[in-house]
């Protein structure tokens, strides 16, 4: 389980995170939902140690973040974050070189699934192809948790469908997935837990299935309630 407790961060005299607390369980897809600037990406970056925070605690599988824990968690940022001069195959080799839990067979499988050209240069990839390679790099590691920052942002419809298929496959089945999005329509049917963020605070945190059963509301319905209130 990923546990985030009372996470606070100030940036340019603004509370970017103002006591954010939630958990993301293994085997479930948890989605951080919010408008632009709500603090979704900052939470993921804080979990990965990519931005400092003022106070609060983060635990991954019961342990505080450490180099060993980083082997258990894959981060798929909103951009590919690989040097443009690299070729696809070199990016895979770089990941394999640095991660003990890299699964080369899965990488090949995903490469074929997304029809990526191993010889293509990263700088020449389209936004959609870049997003697919980003997924390959993140999902080819045998990790317990996967963090994804806006996996559908700026991607064409066909690529979105292909990426959405990943969420229903065995690739994420037994892992804990924590993702952010402000385009909930794409993800609604896939997510188990929704955490709504607004101005650095958690304003709603619920089980999507239970919400549908108990109150007959979809995630989008709750979203309208929260953000139009």
């Amino acid at each position, binding site marked *: 389980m990923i546990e985030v407790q009372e996470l606070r961060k100030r940036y340019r005299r603004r509370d970017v995170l103002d006591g954010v607390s939630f958990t993301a369980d293994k085997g479930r897809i948890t989605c951080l939902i919010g408008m632009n600037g709500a603090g979704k990406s900052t939470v993921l970056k804080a979990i990965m140690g990519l931005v400092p925070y003022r106070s609060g605690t983060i635990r991954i599988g019961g342990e505080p973040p450490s180099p060993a824990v980083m082997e258990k968690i894959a*981060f798929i940022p909103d951009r590919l*974050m690989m040097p443009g001069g690299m070729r696809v195959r070199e990016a895979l080799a770089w990941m394999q070189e640095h991660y003990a839990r890299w699964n080369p067979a899965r990488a090949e499988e995903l490469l074929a699934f997304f029809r990526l050209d191993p010889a293509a240069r990263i700088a020449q990839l389209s936004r959609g192809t870049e997003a697919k390679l980003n997924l390959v790099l993140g999902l080819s590691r045998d990790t317990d948790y996967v963090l994804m920052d806006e996996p559908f942002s700026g991607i064409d419809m066909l690529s979105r469908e292909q990426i959405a298929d990943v969420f229903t496959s065995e690739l994420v089945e037994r892992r804990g997935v924590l993702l952010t999005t402000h385009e909930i329509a794409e993800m609604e049917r896939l997510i188990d837990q929704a955490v709504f963020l607004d101005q650095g605070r958690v304003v709603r945190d619920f089980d999507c299935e239970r919400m549908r059963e108990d109150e007959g509301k979809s995630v989008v319905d709750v979203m309208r309630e929260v953000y139009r209130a």
Partner: protein
Amino acid sequence: MMHYLKLVRMEVHRFRYVLAGLAGLTLVLQLLAVWLTTNQRLSELRESNFVDSGAQFSHSKLSFTFILYNTQFMYALPILLSILVLVLYVPGIWYRDWLGRSSFIYRLLALPMRRATLYWSKLTALLLFVFALLGLQAASLPLQWWIFRAMVPQAWQAPSYLSDIIGQNKVLQVLLPANPLDFALYYALGVLGVLVVFTAIIIERSYRGWGVLYAILYVLACTLLVVVPLPLLGTNHNAMGLYPIEVVTIALTAALLVLASAIWLGLRLLRRSISV
């Protein structure tokens, strides 16, 4: 350890074309400088010998030392250019990872390793670049000497000695000092400078806007600490009435203090405060 070696290899790989370019330029320009100067001096010598003695025998000779002394600018140019590129690459080796929308620093900081590994790998890569170019410089001297010997008739050759050869070029003197203590001192000061700049960059990357000011103040403070005792070194009498050994101790303590604080602060900020 494996992460460290892999990161060093990656840094070397990323800089390989620039390094090869600098090495090639140094080799070609210095050989050209030696060839042109030898040619020029040779024709002057031929002319003077012909005028003086009807080309029966030569009364003056050419030495490789003399040739190097007369190639000052062209010979030093690639060395100075290499130094400039490497100095610019000290901040470059960090900032290139933040460049663009797809900044590689995300991947580097998220690697399952202690972040100090990244810091040491970048320092090691820079040292490798410096010593690779230095090694090439040292290795190219015998080649240049060989070309000189091939061009100048044996009868016109005056002997040269390696220690004298290096002393002929002002830049070479600093780059390859004859005294091992001087060598250690120059390069230790260089490493200290690199580490101070590393820390300044990490300060800036940690605090961004205000970080620029903090970084400038930090560099100024370190420079003052290291530079102030230096003019007193090697003097027997100074305004403060200190013995030479006391001045050396002060200078060394100041440098060690700056070194230790640069490493400590840099690594601490890299671990706790740096931001993508």
